[in-house]
């Protein structure tokens, strides 16, 4: 794990005054891989493909696996995806860790290779945006295949989406254009005039993605990592 020094974070959906103070924390250097997750289901058979409860994971759960314990060797080192929030949370807890809060994840992810906060670096933002515009690769590359950021952490951008503990606390209504008329601006991450930075498109997309899922959803490009 790598240490992320704390700091202030202003969610893109809120005003200057609503800044969130993030304490220092440790974050996994890589997203959790299929191999990592296999070790987990072997010791926690409740979370096997065949035995997981449907309210905790939809039918796409571990879809890339051939059976409860088998998958193509080539994806052993790739991030585990098609994983529900419940499963990701349980995994982290069993490691003595937890899922990152959205604010923590965003603080770690605003670091470029050289800067702790590159959120105003146009080159960095464009790089992230370029990745976001491309469909997911048919076979996900292994973890560590993108860049190592300022904190020594890999793959926060450029590989898969990642679950956060409070992914559903900032909501888009689904009708993102109407969000500016809501009075509860804390709950509208959809991208509206109320946003701090209306040009941070990559950030809009992350919030849109988080708002589009429910805790039992298993999505082909959504994985996770843990913090403590």
């Amino acid at each position, binding site marked *: 794990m790598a240490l992320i020094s704390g700091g202030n974070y202003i969610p893109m959906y809120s005003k200057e005054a609503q800044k969130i103070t993030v304490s220092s924390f440790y974050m996994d250097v890589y997203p959790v891989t299929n191999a990592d997750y296999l070790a987990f289901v072997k010791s926690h058979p409740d979370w096997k493909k065949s035995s997981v409860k449907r309210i905790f994971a939809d039918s796409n759960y571990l879809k890339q696996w051939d059976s409860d314990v088998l998958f193509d060797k080539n994806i052993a080192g790739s991030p585990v995806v098609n994983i529900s929030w419940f499963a990701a949370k349980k995994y982290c807890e069993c490691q003595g860790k937890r899922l990152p809060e959205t604010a923590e994840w965003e603080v770690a992810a605003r670091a470029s290779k050289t800067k702790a906060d590159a959120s105003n670096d146009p080159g960095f933002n464009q790089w992230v945006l370029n990745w976001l515009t491309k469909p*997911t690769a048919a076979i996900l590359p292994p973890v560590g295949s993108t860049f190592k950021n300022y904190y020594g952490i890999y793959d926060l951008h450029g590989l898969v989406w990642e679950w956060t503990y409070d992914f559903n606390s900032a909501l888009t209504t*689904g*009708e*993102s*254009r109407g969000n500016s008329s809501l009075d509860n601006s804390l709950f509208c991450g959809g991208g509206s005039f109320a946003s701090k930075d209306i040009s941070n498109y990559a950030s809009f997309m992350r*919030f*849109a993605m988080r708002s589009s899922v429910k805790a039992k959803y*298993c*999505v082909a*490009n959504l994985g996770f990592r843990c913090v403590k």
Partner: protein
Amino acid sequence: MSVFCIAGFVLSGCSVKNSNAIKGEEVAVLTFAPNVPPPITRDYATKMIVNLEVIEKEMEMMDGVKYNFWTFGGQVPGKFIRVREGDLVEFHLKNDPSNKLPHNIDLHAVTGPGGGAVSTFTAPGHETQFSFTAINPGLFIYHCATAPVGMHIANGMYGLILVEPRGGLPKVDKEFYVVQGDFYTKGSYGESGEQPFNMEKALDEKPDYVVFNGKVGALTGDNALKAKVGETVRLFVGNGGPGLTSSFHVIGEIFDNVYPEGGSTQNHNVQTTLIPPGGSAITEFKLQVPGNFILVDHAIFRAFNKGALGILKVDGPENKTIYSGQQDDRIYQPEGGAVQTMPSADAEKAKPLTKTEKLELGKALFASTCQACHQADGKGIEKAFPPLYKSDYFAANPQKIVQVITHGLSGPITVNGKTFNSVMPKQTLSDNQVASVATYVLNNFGNKGGEINAEDVAKIRK
């Protein structure tokens, strides 16, 4: 009541009594541009099931230029949806599992919050469903409305849904589907390779590409729309934007009928119709003569420099009364055949110029004074204007150029083996100007070089 029923039947071709009852169900036939699903012939409303899949994929913006498009159905524009006024539409939006992003759909044909966007916010690998009644007839845009909305639209997420009025639209011979859109790329127009979306250009509304049907050349060459003389054509035209309003025009045609903004009124005899982003128009016209009729956004740099150009190729017999074709082409001599004097430029007594200065001044003078006849490449026009390109006329004696410029020339001459019999007026240029343009000609167009001085010009001028 029965009187009303009969009146309604006569006027709109349907029974008022049955107008709101939903009978049966159908799965909508959807088509890619430029094709349009067949007209609806039923005289009752039905439950129409529409299945539309969102697909993010790399395609070409023009040959050699790759772009990551987000699409409804796999192409830009999205598939054409055709329903009837009063239909109950059961809409299924499917987000392909390999897609990176959540998406939704706002159909402008929907009466209800977000036009369906609220109800169709769909994670990758999921499918959402909602239903609406197509209350208002017309031609409507649909588009994605997920944040950031502008980017989802800028990447190609739009298409058209037609709600046919009860009784249908008048019968025509051919129907086509055309949607304009503007695109913002890192590289400028034509720069090859993978071109990512450029947010700054999008915010400035300065696109690199303005195209019909998602690609430069989607409607030209082998992809041209095709019809025959005598046929009536209907174009369902949309504008996905996101930035620019289209001045939609078909060169060489006049729209007999336009349904402006895709609504129910009709305008007639229209040259150019405005189509705003998020809007549409239906245009109809009868083809009277054969030829290529060119679809453009008449904000014309978009057509010739950014791609907004398509072709309707019409085959069939000529009608010389309506359009004769060229009947003659002759030389136009505004002031008779004598040697003429051009209006005087301010004569300047200036210091001698260096060769570099002459070449620079000569280039500008050539463009403003000589190029109209001798052409930019110096090759002239056969039978009218002799070539300066590798010219044997002045090869042996460069001073002949000065002679012609200062005194004019008329009558037969032979240049590079071809005969010309026409008139060049004497040019009123200063000695320095003549020296410059002559030096420019000698050092360009494949000629063998040399330099003319102002004193030479002064001598020849006398």
